[in-house]
């Protein structure tokens, strides 16, 4: 695609890492990073909900024209969706980048397993278009692949021994 950036412990939640793929034309695809709990063995997704508040559903995002008028504007911490698992856990996926929401992936609503099978392609969460002026700056606060790998390694080393 182009460049990969990562955000770890999004919203302070341990290991809830996201991966942002940015094209050379500045468009960002928000996906889950491999280390995210949802992508670990044994997790079954029960439902995915794009209704993030009483007034706001990401499914109602309507974008028109070349300049994408009417799009919902997202900040880094804006929630994209809430995912519930069969074990009762709930996870929120966040935008990680500022910009206009283009679309959320409706394919995973019908078949949530795609999210786990192909998290970096067909299982993407959302597409965001940052402002032209901010195209580079939005990724400055994110991790490179190398930095991310170092953090993941540290986590594994710090993990208490399981009996």
């Amino acid at each position: 695609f182009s460049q990969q950036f990562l955000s770890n412990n999004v919203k302070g939640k341990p290991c809830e890492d996201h991966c942002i793929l940015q094209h050379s034309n500045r468009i960002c695809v928000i996906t889950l990073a491999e280390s995210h709990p949802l992508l670990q063995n044994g997790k079954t997704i029960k439902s995915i909900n794009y209704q993030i508040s009483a007034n706001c559903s990401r499914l109602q995002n309507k974008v028109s024209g070349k300049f994408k008028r009417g799009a919902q504007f997202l900040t880094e911490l804006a929630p994209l969706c809430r995912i519930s698992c069969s074990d009762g856990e709930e996870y929120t996926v966040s935008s990680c980048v500022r910009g206009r929401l283009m679309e959320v992936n409706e394919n995973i609503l019908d078949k949530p397993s795609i999210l786990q099978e192909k998290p970096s392609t067909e299982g993407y969460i959302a597409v965001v278009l940052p402002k032209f002026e901010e195209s580079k700056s939005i990724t400055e606060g994110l991790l490179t692949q190398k930095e991310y790998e170092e953090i993941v390694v540290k986590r594994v080393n710090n993990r208490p021994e399981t009996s």
Partner: protein
Amino acid sequence: MFPLAEKDKSIARLLFSTGTCPRCIFRFCGVDFHAPYRLPYKDLLRELENFLKTEDDDLSLEAAKPPLKKIRLQDEETQIDDQSQNGGEMIAIVKDENVIPEKPYLNACNICLGILQEFCEKKFIKKVCQKVESSGYEFTNLVFSVSFPPQLSVREHAAWLLVKQEMGKQGLSLGRDDIVQLKEAYKWISHPLFSEELGVPVDGKSLFEVSVIFAHPETDEDCHFLSTSCPDCFKPAKNKQSVFTRMAVVKALDKIKDDDFRKKFPCPPNLPKAFCSAVEIQCAHGAVFVAGRYNKYSRNLPQTPWIIDGERKLESSVEELISSQLLTVFKAESFNFSSSGREDVDVRTLGNGRPFAVELVNPRRVQFTSQDIKELQQKINISSDKIQVRDLQLVTREAIGHMKEGEEEKTKTYSALVWTDKAIQKKDIEFLDDLKDLQINQKTPLRVLHRRPLAIRVRIIHTMETHYIDEHHFRLHLKTQAGTYIKEFVHGDFGRTKPNIGSLMNGTADILELDVESVDVDWPPALDN
């Protein structure tokens, strides 16, 4: 034969006394055939004076003579100042009350400000033609466009009201249409002079335009009173310098009541201090169009120059390689390149090539034989191995429509080199050959989403033909509807193009190479080259 009759005498006398020139007098008397206007000014002036003279009229003729500038012999300094003001025009030297004109154009006409005086006569036309000839344009006919300052319409209107009133006294009416338009009379006189001087006919449909703009800054404010009487006619437009355009002024004159007009503007119009001047004499040639088909053999060549932040990212472009040669040969100002669709930087165009057209703006050279064009085609083909052109020919603007039609309606065929993640055998791809008119839904590809609206495109893949290469590669030939994104059909674009080759094969596929095999548009006509 002098075109005025006894019935015209009172109007002619009235207008002459206010400072109107002979040709404008003809116009207001409804003289609507060309010949009288084309006679030389001084002859017209003489004949008019004779016409207006009556037997015992010497005294009244004095009174009726136009109020020329009367300079006393003792006022020599003022005489010199006035002379420079008039650009060297001679001034009447007054002896007693008699006025003897030194040169014909003594005063600028109070209606046409000189347009139908010196500016339609041979000397001026010759000056314009000199400029035309030195501009270096090639032309076989011309269209002459002339622009007058808007206040001329105001003066015309004032003169009309005056004449209308005078005719009313005789129980006659005078409609606007009974008067010959200034522009019309001007063209009657100037067109034959242009043809004679340049040796080509004047033709309204000509692509070569000679334009003259007249101005008279001294009276520019004459129109301003109209904005108070008819404010809604004068809306400030961003592009225009002045709100008082000819159109707006004409519109306001249509609306304003005769009484209101007469309160704000003198009827008859007063004498101007100076003649108007030709502030711009320009020539331009309408665009000519060259069409053809191009092949692209490079996987590193953009269609249009690729420049980011002022820096060129890739050397040259399809349009520059084709158009720069044309620009030089046609001696044009600029070009506009368009084609029946286009391909990415890394895609080749094979087969008969893709139709294109180049608009050459304001060309100085326009006469080319088909041999000339053939040589031009060879020149382009020798200049680069990245592109080649064929069927190069001159076409009309209307013909371009065929090309754009092709973009939306006609089919294209492609050849793609496909990679698969799963190991495949020949039999695994055979089913693709049997899929006919496969409908696919493509969301706007992410790679163009920054500049295209988000939408879903329904497209048809008409036929496919596969050629097995090895466990992870095969060649895919396909014939698709216009506007299909081939790369996305192969790799799926995050599942946003459905179905795609990957999904059809229950795996993941990617595209390594793409070629356009044909663009199925039968325009421009093939030449045997």
